[in-house]
Structures are given as structure tokens and as C-alpha cells.
């Protein structure tokens, strides 16, 4: 026999998620009837989730305007109940939802904008660690250079997007009119700086290629080969050194390591 506790909980969840009111037969009525009592919970459920979407995606909200954002909120709450203990993660599936929704997927920059906002949040509370310094780099013996690998700060992410959504985000953040959506391949690096503020900046194609090379466990000799093959640099080694110093100064590099140990960061795509 099914326990009545389990049954009540199933009925209550049905009421919250799908508006099914079977549970009302088991609710005490007095000054308020069962439906009124239940609706306090039904309203609260949606309000709480709405607030999370609102807080996590303010720029997306601006971009869509009240009517469309409302449509997004209502649709998302109906389609995606929370599978998380913390509301911090409730909107993690939002970009996928937007990519698959028949209406929102007609404007693919919307999902990309949501994905960028998630990316910022992920860098915001990614793990802490000290960054390597330029001194560490200078102390590496020349013989160790070719096999040198990089471990990046846990907050560092590559945001590759086929749309100008970062430009749109920046314009809206500055309370300007956003540019029209445009298809363009863009790569941004998102990370958290020493003051624990999330930053982002665009990566040149060669910088992107090299970041990917190191993120996938490539070493300095491979990076130098890439530079030699893809640029007109007179000295690949100098070019690489300049880049490494820049990354170190930005706090992107957690550790300079030797050998074949597997990388600890994978790019987001």
C-alpha cells in the first residue's frame, strides 16, 4: 500500500508543477477554503523561481522587454522545474531551453545572450586559487620550456559565440540602445580578477587558438609551432613569451607545469 505521506507529497507537487488540484480534498477548510490555501503555495512557488530568473538575467530582461521576458519566465517555469538544491543553479538549463523553444529559437541571439550571462555567473563563484607570477616564468630553465604546460585559473572560460551578443550585453549594461543582432564569430575570455570582479575581453584569433592549445594540454613547443605556422612573427618564441607575460599579468594562469599531466579546465562552447 502506498503511504499516505508519499501520496500527499505527490499530490502537492502535482499542484505546484501542473496546477492539478487533487490535493484539495485532503486540505482542511475553514475561514479559507482548500483552494485558497493551496494557491498561497502555488503563487509562492512561481514567485520564487521568477525572482531567480529576474536576478540572474537582468540584461536579457532588458533586451527582451517586459512582454517577451514575461513569456520567457512563464514558459521556463512551466517547462523546467528545479532539479537543484540551490537556486543559484536553477537557470543553468535556460540557454538550452531558449535554443529549443519554438518561439525563442527563431532568434538564436537570445539563447546566446543568456549563455553569456550564465558564463559571467560561473566565473563569479568559480573556485579560488593563487595565480602564477611572471617571476615563476622567469625562473624556468630554458631546457624546460618546450614541455611547459599551463593550468588556468578556474574562473577562466572561453566564450565562443556566433553572434554579437557581448556587444549587445555591453550596450544594454551602459543603458544604450543595443546594436542589431549580427552573425559573427567571436571569442571572449571571461575570468575573475584579483579583486574578485568578473571581467571579459575579446581574444584575437591567434590568442584563441593558443588558449585552446594550452587548455587541451598542449605545451610551449606546440604553441610555438602554431605561431610559426599561423603568423608572420619573426620569432615565435618572443611572440609566445609576450603572450604568456600578458596572461600572467591578467591573472589567467594558475600554474606553470612540466610534462604530460592532463589539463584541468575545458573551454565552454
Amino acid at each position, binding site marked *: 500500500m502506498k503511504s*499516505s505521506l508519499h501520496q500527499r507529497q505527490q499530490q502537492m*507537487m502535482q499542484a505546484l508543477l501542473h496546477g492539478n488540484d487533487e490535493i484539495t480534498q485532503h486540505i*482542511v477548510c*475553514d475561514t479559507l477554503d482548500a483552494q485558497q490555501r493551496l494557491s498561497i503555495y502555488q503563487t509562492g512557488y512561481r514567485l*520564487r523561481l521568477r525572482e531567480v530568473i529576474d536576478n540572474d538575467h537582468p540584461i536579457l530582461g532588458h533586451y527582451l522587454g517586459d512582454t517577451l521576458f514575461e513569456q520567457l519566465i512563464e514558459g521556463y517555469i512551466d517547462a523546467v522545474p528545479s532539479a537543484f538544491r540551490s537556486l543559484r543553479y536553477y537557470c543553468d538549463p535556460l540557454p538550452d531551453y531558449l535554443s529549443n523553444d519554438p518561439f525563442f529559437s527563431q532568434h538564436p541571439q537570445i539563447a546566446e545572450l543568456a549563455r553569456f550571462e550564465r558564463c559571467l555567473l560561473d566565473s*563569479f563563484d568559480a573556485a579560488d586559487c593563487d595565480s602564477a607570477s611572471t617571476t615563476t616564468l622567469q625562473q624556468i630553465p630554458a631546457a624546460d620550456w618546450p614541455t611547459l604546460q599551463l593550468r588556468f585559473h578556474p574562473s577562466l572560460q572561453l566564450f565562443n559565440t556566433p553572434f554579437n551578443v557581448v556587444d549587445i550585453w555591453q550596450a544594454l549594461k551602459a543603458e544604450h540602445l543595443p546594436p542589431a543582432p549580427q552573425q559573427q564569430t567571436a571569442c571572449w575570455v571571461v575570468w575573475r580578477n584579483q579583486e*574578485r570582479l568578473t571581467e571579459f575581453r575579446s581574444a584575437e584569433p591567434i590568442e584563441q587558438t593558443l588558449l585552446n592549445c594550452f587548455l587541451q594540454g598542449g605545451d610551449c613547443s606546440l604553441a610555438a609551432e602554431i605561431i610559426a605556422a599561423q603568423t608572420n612573427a619573426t620569432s615565435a618564441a618572443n611572440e609566445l613569451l609576450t603572450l604568456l607575460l600578458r596572461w600572467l599579468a591578467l591573472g589567467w594562469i594558475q600554474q606553470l607545469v612540466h610534462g604530460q599531466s592532463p589539463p584541468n579546465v575545458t573551454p565552454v562552447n
Partner: protein
Amino acid sequence: MSNHYLGFGLGLRTPHFQDVLETQPDVDWFEIISENFMVAGGKPKYYLHAIRERYPMVMHGVSMSIGSTEPLDKDYLKQLKQLANEVQPAWISDHLCWTGLDGINSHDLLPLPYTEEAINHVAERIIQVQDILGRQLLLENVSSYLSYTDSAMSEWTFYNAVVERADCLMLLDINNIYVSSRNHHFDPETYLNAINPARVRQFHLAGHSDVGTHVIDTHDHDVCDSVWALYRQALHRFGPISTMIERDDNIPPLQQLVDELNIARQLAATTLQDRSVREVAYS
């Protein structure tokens, strides 16, 4: 006074992080929402550790879902234990309720039917959790807006029974008693007088929204007079118990909450003085 007495605390909320560090307010301890710090790093963890260095802390969870009929979430408990290792809280609390089923979280504190079946179910799970955490758990009475026709006893009878059976402790939310008493038409003093004083480790105070026909536990107002009056009754009955104010919405400047906390201090000072005078007179 027991060695568990921490004095007067506040809920630690994001808008006050910087202010707490800079002004080091006259607050005896802080309560954190455990789930808000189940992240890897960044600002939340930085402030958590910096503030913990200066103040005692307790951890208060909102999604253990101790009353749910789905299996206990071992992953969540592992994270909770990990956080407790970092924070070294004076104690860990959650709510006597359930929050979800079948992997779906409602993020609400949903009421249980007050039945023998529920007592057995919840008590058995509390024992498991206490085993995993290696410490006694505090469970808080929630505000509720509905009760089930299945219920065979009062909320306070249920609460006492669960706590006795599981050998855990109580976080008595005075505002929640008031809110539920209005919503379910019982006498809040009857509730207080039924609670076993030996189990009470902490009080919560908070504001709510009174919509006339019922009251909603919104934590977005100051503590109201009726709740202060009930707090005074609670002090009479339970003596000095670590007390804190929860504020989760419409959050005022930190100093305003410190001032409100001082009302609690003042009330406790006079009430407890009366109480000891009375105890001496009757002894």
C-alpha cells in the same frame, strides 16, 4: 546559562557583506544560509571566511527536505558537511518540512501531515543525517498556510514527538508560530507552553505580511508587536536562548537591523531579570 548560548545574531545577507567587515557591528554571531555558500569560491566564499574570522556562525539550510519520501540526498549532505568543516559552525539547522520529490525541488518549506507515519519517517531520517554530520541537528518549525485532513495531532505535539524520537534539537521560530497560529486559528501561547524547553537551542524572529484573512511569512518587514510579545513569553518560558533576526527581502541598511536586534537584547534583559526575580521569590 548554557554554554550553547551565543547571544544576539543576524542573518548574514549579501548586501551587508562589505558593511559587516568594515563596521564590525555589535552583533554576537551570524547565521548563514548554507546553500548560498555551496559554491566553489569568489566573493561569497571570500566574505564568508573573512566574516567568520571575526564572528561565531551557525549554518541554516533550506533544502535538506528532511520530511520528503524520496531518498536523502547524500550529495547534498556531503556538501553540507564540507561547508561545516570550513565554517566550523556552532550548530547546523534546517526545517521540519519537505521541499521536493522525485528530484524536483519546490524551493518552498512545505508542511507535513501530523501523523504517526510522518513522525516515524522524519525521525528515522534525522537520525541518519545526524549520523552523517556527526552532530545533533536543529529543526525549525515552519510557517504554514494549509493543514492536511490526515493530521491526527497538533503541530506542537508532532514537533515534540519528532524531536524526542530523533534526539535532535529545536530552532523555535517565534514569528512562524505567530504566522501559523493566525492561519490555523490556534493560540500561540498554547504552542509555546507545550514545547519541551530542554530541546530549544535557538530562536528566530522575523517580520511578515498581514493580509487580513491570513498572514504570509515574507521576512520583508520589521518584527511586529505581536511577535515581540510572543518573544517575551518565550523568554519567560525558555530563559536565555540564542536569538536572531531574519530579513530576506526589502533589506534595510545593516545598522537598522542592528538597532532592531537591540530591541531583542533589551527585551531579553528586562524579561530575564523579571524571571530570575520571580524564580528567587518562589524558591
